[in-house]
């Protein structure tokens, strides 16, 4: 009886792992889309609102769902609070802390880190150029993510189950 229970547990664990991976793949394009929307919002804040960076980031963070929003909020708070570190350092740190909560990969991380180098350090036309560039690159990443998702999502789901079954049989 215990053996059966153990087998069931293992099977459950592996299927859940499979579903989690599948979920990650499913969420990735969505989160990149959110990232793009929030950068566009930041762009409007900068070009029309001329709002300083900390407030602009805060506004963007509010209008963005949690995992990605946390990145902006984290940066905004750090910017507002401490006065002796430059935007890049704070931006890199925010990315570093928040990235594991999101399901996005290295590609987007580099793009956003690149954006951090010039954020708030030049006039609005230059800012817009950088932001537009970032958005374009993210667009490319999103298409890639979409494709990955189609392929890997179902794979991971079934793979999880099979792995579980295999292990159960092996140990039986």
């Amino acid at each position, binding site marked *: 009886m215990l053996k059966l229970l153990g087998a069931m547990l293992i099977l459950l664990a592996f299927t859940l792992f499979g579903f989690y991976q599948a979920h990650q793949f499913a969420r990735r394009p969505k989160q990149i889309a959110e990232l793009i929307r929030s950068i566009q919002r930041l762009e409007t804040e900068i070009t029309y609102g001329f709002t300083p960076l900390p407030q602009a980031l805060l506004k963007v963070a509010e209008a963005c769902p949690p995992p990605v929003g946390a990145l902006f909020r984290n940066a905004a708070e750090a910017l507002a609070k401490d006065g002796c570190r430059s935007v890049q350092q704070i931006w890199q740190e925010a990315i570093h802390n928040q990235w594991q909560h999101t399901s996005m990969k290295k590609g987007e991380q580099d793009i956003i880190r690149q954006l951090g180098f010039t954020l708030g350090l030049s006039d609005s036309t230059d800012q817009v150029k950088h932001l537009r560039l970032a958005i374009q690159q993210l667009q490319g990443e999103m298409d890639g993510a979409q494709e990955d998702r189609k392929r890997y999502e179902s794979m991971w789901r079934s*793979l999880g189950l*099979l792995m579980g079954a295999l292990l159960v049989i*092996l140990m*039986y």
Partner: protein
Amino acid sequence: MNVDVNAIFQIAGIGIIIAMIHTVLKQMGKEDMAHWVTVIGFVVVLFMVVNLLDSLFKEIKTIFLFQ
């Protein structure tokens, strides 16, 4: 006796699952991963069969008084 029956089911199960994993991975385009899985599965099963074969030959040696 029943231990062997289990083993037979085990081998059959492994075979089936390995086959399914192989097909899934192949669909996803991860050919090499699929082959790897198959080889590993095969090795595991082979290991079991070899064990049994070894015991078989030992038995025959003792029975037919091979010295």
